[in-house]
């Protein structure tokens, strides 16, 4: 036995506990507000290219040098691949500007990926057409 599973359980439990009042507060509405977006310059720290949804994690440093970790959610890997977005387009350590839609619950460090802009000027778009059918 190690202490790691216990720690993981505690983290999971805390996450769930924090999520429940959030959902209740919003009476089951969308997690993200597609009408409001934000943009941050960030350094990619972790890439999760997994079903059912991908995540890109990134650190944002403010003018005082304080670092804040953000989570950005994307579509499923298959849909992204079909739309031309591949895991290999991103690397830990990349300094990018991320456009994302805000979380409706007020989570300031969470976003729904819209686009990732790279320093050389190219950008990658995210989209989930299967979601737009409203029936998945």
């Amino acid at each position, binding site marked *: 036995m190690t202490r790691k599973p216990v720690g993981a359980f505690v983290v*999971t439990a805390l*996450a*769930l506990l*924090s*999520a*429940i009042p*959030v*959902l*209740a507060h919003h*009476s*089951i*509405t*969308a*997690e*993200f*507000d*597609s*009408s409001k977006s934000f943009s941050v310059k960030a350094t990619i720290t972790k890439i999760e290219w997994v*079903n*059912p*949804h991908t*995540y890109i994690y990134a650190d944002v440093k403010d003018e005082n040098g304080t670092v804040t970790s953000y*989570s950005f*959610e994307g579509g*499923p*890997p*298959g*849909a992204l*691949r*079909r*739309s*031309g*977005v591949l895991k290999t*387009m991103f690397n830990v350590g990349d300094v990018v500007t991320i456009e994302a*839609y805000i*979380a*409706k*619950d007020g*989570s300031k460090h*969470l976003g*729904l990926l*819209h*686009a990732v802009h790279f320093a*050389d*000027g*190219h*950008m*990658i*778009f*995210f*989209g*989930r*057409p*299967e*979601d*737009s*059918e*409203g*029936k*998945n």
Partner: protein
Amino acid sequence: MKVCLGFCLAAAAAVLGMLCMASGLAAQEGSGSQPAKSKQQPMPKGGPAPRTADGHPDFSGVWFVGTAGGFTYNPALRKQFDPKVTPEEPPQFQPWAATKIKSMTATDFELGRASVNCMPRGVPGMFLINPYPFQIVQTPGLFVQLDELNNNFRVVHTDGRAHSPDPDPSFDGDEVGHWEGDTLVIDVIAIDERTWNNFTGWFHSDQEHVIERITRPSMNYLNVQVTIEDPKVLSKPWTSAPRVWTLAHEDLLEYYCTNNQEVEEYKALKAQESGGGKK
């Protein structure tokens, strides 16, 4: 917080889709940008449907929802039927069933939503509420459907055999097929009662009987029309409009629903709703 809600993504969708489309077009004009892949034209008919050695239409191939024949951001190409051309009546419920559905809250709808609870779509959901592609592998006497969604599969004998006399309930049910001309008719009974036929409370009973009528009117097009009889829940049988899929020349990928944490969240929310009197 790592919560992803299928319904919320749907809510963001139309706008996102349009934004992505617009961005994609802009990207093509920019320098060094990454245009999104998105098919923009409906597939042509593509000539007559192929046939298997026994002379029946061969449905084999990878099929995408709508008319694009693959991935598209274009919502018009993802539509499976035009209600102005082939109208589809809403299901007519028995009074008790209508009352039950009317009493459901938005939380109940989310708890019953397969993209939240990660239950299999099953039959007939795999044709009615499944935006992911599937592959059909057909041989004389056998229809095999491989679904990208949750790597589900179904195997249907098409030799006209009878149903099992004592089937156990299952998500895809006890299913047997036979040909009526160029239409494959799959008859399904003994469907697990936990599935819904839509995302707004259309539950079903152990008496549900589903008839799927599958045709391939041309090389690139597949039509599926679903009839649902369920005398305990419906006041009359319901028949869908013919739903359209189109042929894609690419392989299936893997998609698994693993949003199981959401179920616990919604259950907790439901407990709050019913126990605490909170609003």
